[in-house]
């Protein structure tokens, strides 16, 4: 099997705050295989967005990557072995600039404000192409236009209308689709989507999800989907990783995670999502709130909110262990978590 497009190993990121260090990402490791879609799921403040920004090296000045490695592998079309391996954390200057968007593009949550208000959509495409050494002559200008229009049609926009528009003349959903088209302009191998539909209404959300699925089928890029919404993740992802307090606590195939989750937090997240068929009484939320990332709890970081927590959970942090092929969990009680939680809910 070919090596993964992206390999993250032991990545740790801290923010410097007045009160102390915010441990946003703690020793996270995961892979994104070629053409695979991985979802990072977690509450706000779990560190999932920091991972995304870290991969693009776009962290604010107060953030510090204190350890780990991010290896990106570029494949030539049709080839099965990586033609180039890049340590993203070692990239500097122009190399870093060229890595961004050409190899790895990112669609942000803030659809409304992601485009420069004083530039036309066409100028956004031209700027991006120019920055990466395309578009110098008239003929390339025409080529850029053709390529951009093709992408805009693929995200179900009317290129003729959108091309000469200013961002404020487009709706939020249209802007997000423009950004997706823009992300694909340089044919990146990896697309990071950070809550791409959160700021949008439910119908637009649906539309964007369909567009993303379609594009992935057509273009075959790898995807890292960052969201708090399990249902959306399930739709798009091949594998799902649950992030809690800056660490991956469960990761596995999307079906496995939904059918046989082992971590009490993942179980809680799934139970917190209403479905049309489930009745209201089976709906539970995870009690409590995310931990303070400056003063993390001892032991398992989830123990203050976990009904199954015992003395061991309070003292030792469980490691991520493979409990069945491709399914990893970090919990002392994974063997009986589901039954125990069911019994616990029946009691209360």
């Amino acid at each position: 099997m070919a090596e993964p497009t992206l390999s993250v190993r032991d990545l740790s990121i801290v923010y410097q705050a007045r009160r102390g260090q915010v441990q946003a990402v703690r020793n996270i490791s995961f892979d994104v295989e070629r053409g695979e879609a991985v979802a990072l799921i977690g509450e706000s403040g779990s560190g999932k967005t920091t991972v995304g920004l870290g991969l693009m090296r776009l962290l604010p000045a107060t953030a510090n990557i204190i350890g780990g490695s991010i290896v990106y592998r570029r494949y030539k079309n049709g080839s099965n072995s990586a033609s180039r391996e890049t340590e993203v954390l070692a990239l500097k200057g122009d190399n870093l600039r060229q890595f961004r968007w050409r190899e790895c593009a990112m669609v942000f949550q803030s659809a409304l404000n992601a485009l420069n208000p004083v530039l036309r959509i066409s100028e956004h495409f031209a700027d991006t192409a120019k920055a990466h050494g395309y578009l110098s002559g008239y003929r390339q200008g025409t080529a850029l236009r053709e390529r951009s229009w093709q992408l805009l049609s693929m995200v179900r926009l009317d290129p003729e209308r959108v091309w000469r528009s200013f961002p404020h003349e487009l709706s939020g959903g249209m802007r997000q689709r423009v950004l997706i088209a823009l992300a694909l302009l340089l044919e990146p191998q990896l697309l990071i989507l950070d809550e791409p539909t959160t700021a949008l209404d439910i119908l637009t959300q649906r539309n964007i999800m369909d567009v993303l699925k379609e594009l992935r089928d057509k273009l075959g890029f790898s995807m890292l989907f960052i969201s708090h919404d399990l249902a959306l993740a399930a739709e798009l992802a091949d594998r799902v990783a649950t992030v809690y307090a800056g660490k991956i606590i469960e990761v596995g195939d999307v079906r496995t995670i939904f059918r046989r989750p082992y971590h009490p937090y993942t179980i809680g997240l799934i139970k917190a999502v209403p479905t049309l068929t489930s009745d209201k009484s089976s709906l539970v939320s995870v009690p409590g709130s995310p931990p303070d990332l400056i003063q993390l709890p001892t032991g398992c970081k989830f123990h203050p909110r976990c009904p199954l927590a015992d003395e061991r959970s309070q003292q030792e942090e469980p490691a991520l262990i493979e409990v069945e092929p491709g399914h990893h969990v970090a919990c002392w009680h994974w063997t009986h978590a589901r039954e125990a939680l069911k019994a616990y809910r029946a009691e209360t």
Partner: protein
Amino acid sequence: MTTITTSQTTPSTLWSTIQKIRSSYLWRRLAKALFSIWLVATITFFVIRAMPGNAVDILIQELTAQGMSAEDAKNQAAALMNIDLDQPLAGQYLDYLGNTLRGDLGHSYKSAGLSVTDMIVQVLPWTLFSVGLALLITFVVGIALGTIMAYKRDTWIDHLLSNVAATLDAISPYLIGLLAILLLGLTWKLVPIMDMRGAMSPGIKPGFTLEFLTDVFRHVRVLLLVYVLSSIGSWMLQMKSNTVATLGEDYVTVARARGLTDGRILTAYVGRNATLPLFTRLAISVGFVVGGSVLLETLFTYRGIGFLLARSISERDYPVMQGVFLIITISVVFANLLADYVYGWLDPRVHIMGEEN
């Protein structure tokens, strides 16, 4: 068929044209501007006449005191102030408006016989040149320094520039002017004292000669420096805060993610958005260029419009005051109009009503 349509549409076309004019933003703004100017002209007219010891009477008194007969004094006063004193106030007012519309602002009664229009035309170029150039320098340098402060936020260079800017902003321009004369002219002797008096050396012929131009520059340099120093602080601070805010915008982060060069991000993404609000201020400042600076022009005996205004106030030369106020009003009002249009043109989000289609 065609003729019927035409005859039917003609009245409605005419009507819609009238409607268009009525609803046109430009026309409404223009009407408002003209109204402001009229209002200021009217208030100036009546205030001057309502002042205790009304100006016309004072002039008549002064002239009689010089030994002129009451009748002659009255006639001369009327001629100088461009009003007919036998007319009721309303009639005088109408005459004044009519004359003003024709560009006749009356005659100075201190510099006998000189028309106010001529006096203003004589001094206006000096003010436009000195204050306009200073404004341009302040704008460009202020924006550059403000951007540097924002990019180097919380470094020593930012702290230094911020403090300098805040200090300059707090000191009165007059004090900066005095300090400049004292330090540059007397203590350090960097600039000859004579260069700080007037707009040019006596005896130099105006024209496009190197001699004239260097002389003009030598005379204006300290004044220019004082203008720039006294106003650059607030431009720097405002540009810094605008740039800091813009740097935090999502589209800047996205631009970085898109791998754009730092130069492109600085100019098209950060700079353009951060300077937008400053253009309004620039356009409004252009209006005040005409007013010049009364204090600084007096301090440097720079014969611009501020100098003229100061002198006319101290000499109670009411027609000149009236004329200068009117000119300042007109330029400020039209600069505001300009500011609106410039902004609409620079920022695609602002659409001026009635401009589309």
